[in-house]
């Protein structure tokens, strides 16, 4: 198990290294002139050239890269034009909003986590519960309703569902505030009240997929020999299905859930836009629009971290669940 863990962590580190290289290479070799974009007035060529030197953009690419990585791990001096010394983890200095990129992320990351993680708990619980139950009650009215629910959910768009929810609960019934973000630590009730519609909308769409997946998975598992063995031993239906079948059926779902959550953390643009909340997604989109390279670069890295971490967590969970993985 320990060897397995170390192997996965090494692999994850390697992946991150590769991602950072690619991201760095891509953005810093783009033909676009960041300095010219950034400059608003007095943009004569000499001044631009001075800024380029100051930002280190004239240094060899390899030096720029090692400088950047050093900043992340130990911090570095960015020069007086960029706020002086930048503590680790230093992600550079935003070209457009006059602050360190890490400060921007310290602000927007909790927002995105607050949107995605509770929604994930909801969608997993609802989706897996519905799917498993409808597999056990195959062919009944309950099963048909659950299938109808997943078909509806799977064919909807987030902005539509989100818009409808807001019209109903915010503007018509007036029982919920306009969606917004408050820190959980400051005011838990307001935190939940401001985000609950986003959770529900996400949970509705995602749980539809999970219900369908879990149902198919459970039906397949119920036909397995070991479930019949469990029944042949004299176990009750609830124990045979609830323990023996469920444990096997849930394994592949764990994988997909991990990757979905990792992906969702890096892809909340639509949710944030729909509900007018400023998180990682909208920050990234704005950075792209304004050509704020350090912020774009950091967004790419952080999204990659989410995915890599999700992969490691999934692998570990898999090993915990399935001894065949753990023992090779």
């Amino acid at each position, binding site marked *: 198990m320990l060897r397995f863990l170390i192997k996965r962590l090494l692999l994850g580190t390697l992946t991150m290294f590769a991602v950072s290289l690619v991201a760095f290479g891509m953005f810093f070799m783009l033909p676009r002139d960041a300095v010219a974009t950034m400059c608003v007035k007095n943009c004569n060529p000499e001044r631009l050239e001075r800024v380029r030197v100051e930002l280190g953009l004239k240094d060899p690419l390899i030096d720029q890269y090692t400088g950047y990585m050093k900043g992340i791990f130990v911090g570095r001096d960015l020069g007086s034009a960029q706020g002086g010394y930048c503590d680790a983890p230093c992600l550079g200095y935003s070209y457009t909003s006059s602050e360190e990129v890490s400060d921007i992320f310290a602000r927007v990351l909790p927002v995105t986590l607050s949107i995605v993680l509770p929604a994930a708990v909801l969608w997993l619980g609802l989706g897996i519960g519905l799917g498993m139950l409808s597999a056990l009650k195959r062919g009944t009215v309950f099963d048909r309703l659950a299938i109808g629910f997943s078909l509806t959910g799977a064919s909807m768009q987030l902005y539509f569902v989100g818009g409808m929810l807001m019209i109903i609960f915010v503007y018509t019934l007036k029982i919920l505030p306009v969606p917004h973000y408050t820190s959980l630590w400051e005011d838990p009730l307001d935190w939940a009240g401001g985000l609950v519609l986003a959770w529900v909308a996400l949970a509705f769409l995602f749980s539809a997929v999970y219900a369908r997946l879990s149902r198919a998975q459970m039906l397949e598992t119920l036909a397995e*020999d*070991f479930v*019949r063995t469990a*029944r*042949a*031993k004299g176990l*009750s*239906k609830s124990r045979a299905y609830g323990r023996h079948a469920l444990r*096997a059926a849930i394994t592949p779902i764990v994988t997909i859930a991990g990757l979905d959550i990792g992906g969702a953390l890096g892809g909340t643009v639509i949710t944030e836009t729909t509900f007018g909340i400023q998180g990682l997604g909208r920050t990234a989109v704005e950075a792209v629009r304004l050509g704020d390279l350090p912020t774009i670069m950091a967004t790419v890295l952080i999204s990659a971290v989410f995915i890599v971490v999700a992969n490691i967590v999934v692998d570990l969970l898999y090993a915990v669940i399935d001894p065949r993985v753990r023992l090779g």
Partner: protein
Amino acid sequence: MTHDAASPPYLQVDDLRVRFNTADGEVRAVDGVSFGLHRGRTLGIVGESGSGKSVTSLAVMGLHDPARTRITGGISLGGRQLVGLSDGDMRKLRGRDVAMIFQDPLSALHPFYTVGRQLVEAYRTHHPDASKAQARQRALDMLDRVGIPQPDRRLHQYPHEFSGGMRQRVMIAMSLMNDPALLIADEPTTALDVTVQAQILDLLADLQREFHSAIILITHDLGVVSQVADEVLVMYGGRAVEHGTVAQVMRGPQHPYTWGLLASIPSLHGDPEVELKPIKGNPPSLINVPTGCAFHPRCAYAMKPEPCAAQVPQLLAVQADGHRVACHLPEPERIRIYTDEIAHVGVAQ
């Protein structure tokens, strides 16, 4: 069959019918099967794929899904009537009075739980007051009894860490946890190597002597039947076509289908030059079972249309005690055909 004839058999199946509702129509998987089995005796059930062997045994276990299955007739186990029993009541008998082992021990054991845990669970389901330590001890004893070396170490291993033969021993140990009076083994050696097959069969025979249980052994292999069974039930198209002691059915078979089965197995002692003769044609559809004798489209001796294509032959006693055959041919004619035309061709003894 003369064995313990005075006492009623431990398992008595009467006119069992099992039907499945499917999208294509009603499948008559078992259509009127009757037999009895005493403790200490082994019944081999043979027949081609799809003849209803597994469906019959799953009916005895009460493992058919009641929503899709219609079961009529009688199954009496130690005096209790199983047909119509609620799942809650049937559950208490399963694994305790009647246990089952399956063809593929790898897929029949749960891949995520240790062997010990699965054995302990089997015991504690029926001994809710037993402590974990008692159940563990029982598991150790049983693993040891079925010939698994170092049982205390093996207890903590997962099914995938065992070889095929060892896994089947684990399944056997699990089925014996509660000392069942009836053990059903559905093709327990089909997935194993020939040498391992023989060991498993020996083990079953040993255990039977020790525990004095009744065994139903389902197999395609008449050689296996002649080795370990006391009685044979030959099934075709969901019906029993011949039933008797091994000696009666293997040495004096009277049903044309049994002749076909015997001729289609490689003989261990016979002349290897003698060509095997698989039965011509295919097993019948169980949705549209042929009228009359289900075997008549493939039978070389069929009298058509009357009576073979018109009337279902009943499983009737012949002269030898306990031997029953379902065929319209008169008994002397069957005996004559067998001795003159069949017996000298390589038939396994």
